[in-house]
């Protein structure tokens, strides 16, 4: 019976909500609360944080009793690689220009899939990079340098 809550969906959903709510209330302490007549910047977030905590507790309590387990599958590879390639894109857009950023993004996201064929991905990277440059830079006229810093 002990520790069975650890894989329960509603326990974690509740915990997530309580976390957001508590963080909001904690940070909002630094903003003037004001009164109902003159709502300060802290008024709305503090109240929302409180409601969120209440919802979290309620979901947790109901969930501990009913106990639906987490069943969804999660590919760790996709979870790490996909956001990472986005971050890389953002970084390279500033430092290296449009083409390297896009190539990194396409290659990185293709690598987050299960079937990874190197040649195919290389080809896809080339095609998508050139096609996007054509569509966005020449077609829609976005003002980004293709390659920066040389």
């Amino acid at each position: 019976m002990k520790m069975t809550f650890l894989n329960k969906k509603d326990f974690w959903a509740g915990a997530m909500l309580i976390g957001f709510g508590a963080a909001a209330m904690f940070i909002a302490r630094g903003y003037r609360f004001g009164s109902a007549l003159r709502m300060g910047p802290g008024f709305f977030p503090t109240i929302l944080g409180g409601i969120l905590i209440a919802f979290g507790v309620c979901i947790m309590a109901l969930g501990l009793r009913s106990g639906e387990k987490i069943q969804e599958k999660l590919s760790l590879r996709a979870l790490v690689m996909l956001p990472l390639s986005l971050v890389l894109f953002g970084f390279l857009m500033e430092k290296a220009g449009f083409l390297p950023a896009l190539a990194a993004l396409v290659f990185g996201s293709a690598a987050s899939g299960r079937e990874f064929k190197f040649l195919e991905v290389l080809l896809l990277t080339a095609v998508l990079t050139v096609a996007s440059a054509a569509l966005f830079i020449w077609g829609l006229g976005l003002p980004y340098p293709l390659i920066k810093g040389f």
Partner: protein
Amino acid sequence: MELFHNLFFGFGVALTLQNLLYCFIGVFVGTLIGVLPGIGPMATIAMLLPLTYNVPPVAALIMLAGIYYGAQYGGSTTSILVNLPGETSSVVTCIDGYQMARQGRAGAALAIAAIGSFIAGTICTLIVAMFGPPLADMALKFGSPEYFSLMLMGLVAAAVLAQGDMIKSLAMVVLGLLLGVVGSDVDSGVKRFCFDIYELADGIGFVVIAVGVFAVGEIISNLSDPEERTIFTSRVGSLYPTLQDMKQSIAPIIRGTMLGAFFGVLPGTGPSIASFGSYMIEKKVAKDPSRFGHGAIEGVAGPEAANNADAQCKFIPMLTLGIPASGTMALMLGALMIHGITPGPTVMTQKPDLFWGLVASMWIGNLMLVVLNLPLVGLWVSLLKVPYRLLFPAIMVFSAIGIYSANNISFDVYLAALFGVFGIAWRILGCSPVPLLLGFVLGPMMEENLRRALQVSNGDPSVFVTQPISLAFIMVTVLILIVMVLPAVRNRRGDLTG
């Protein structure tokens, strides 16, 4: 008649070469992406929003609306051909549509879906044109208390009536409202939840959340759980439904349209409720209900009409009140705001070209769908065969460029990556991100109206229940909560004991 005068004016706007072109692009691209496996309408619109940045607002909205029904229609195409609903509302179409395809009548099923959608679209264009103006006139008289209560009602209804766990949906609305608070407070100028990051001073970008959660999150989810797809495309069959088909379908189409229009105006009742309802009705009134599930054409015609009617009537509360009744409408509202238009009843008086142009373009868009889809069925079928591993990097490209080009700052892209992770976490925890988006869009307006209402009433919160219109909204909200949420809580307890 003022109605026809207005509609003529609308067609004048929608029929300009530029707007026709954007309508066409929208419908075409929408269907194209709607047909592609694993991309729902939310992700489609979120990902294509950036294409409209440099377009005038009217054309942008026309194009987005086109994408919306294009994607919806693309979903029905995949339901019929591969038994894979692109979204929940096409689940019903799968039942009989796929059976028809197996009997070699995919062409007739596709045609009747298109015709049903078109008839529903025509009727609903008139409904929007008729009910929009009086509703906006009424809303113009609303003060802050009425607005606050209206938004509260809209959000609660949307959260409670949507699919999934109601309590979690309500909680996600609140979380969305909270995310809407991030940025400089309009009243005091205090930077809230900015953590000294100057990029956050203007708040979290709408596109960042929409694309992060709905495009990136969806891809992670799809990669985690790849689905098997068997394509049944040996014979599409004749594209022309027989006279018999038409006769059988016309009554279901009309009934479906009425049902869809009714549910369409209600917030939160997604198109799936309308299409399921229509299927049930058709099965009830049929002389021989046993045909259903074995390729009954009424089972395609009714739900498809209901589906489209619902989608179109969702524009009524969005355009006249500024209240998004669904996730897609939240995206439309977001698009309006990106173009610097404050949503609400003033849109109709201050931007009549936007309102009437959009209404007229709905009809034109639906007509284009019929004309476009039937001859292009072959193209859609071949698109179905594109493997997902080639698709999702392309979606990532659109998403990333879209986010970056909104403000030209890399921080937005980092934030979207974070929201992609949040998106998948919420999915796993059974918390739908759609209510979050609704809350996020309405958050700042809600705070502003709450502040103003309390200022006018000298800080007395009873103002929300002493003003009659506001009281009515509050009563409806409470009623929805009592009727829908209490039994749900009780049911959960029931699961334990029983």
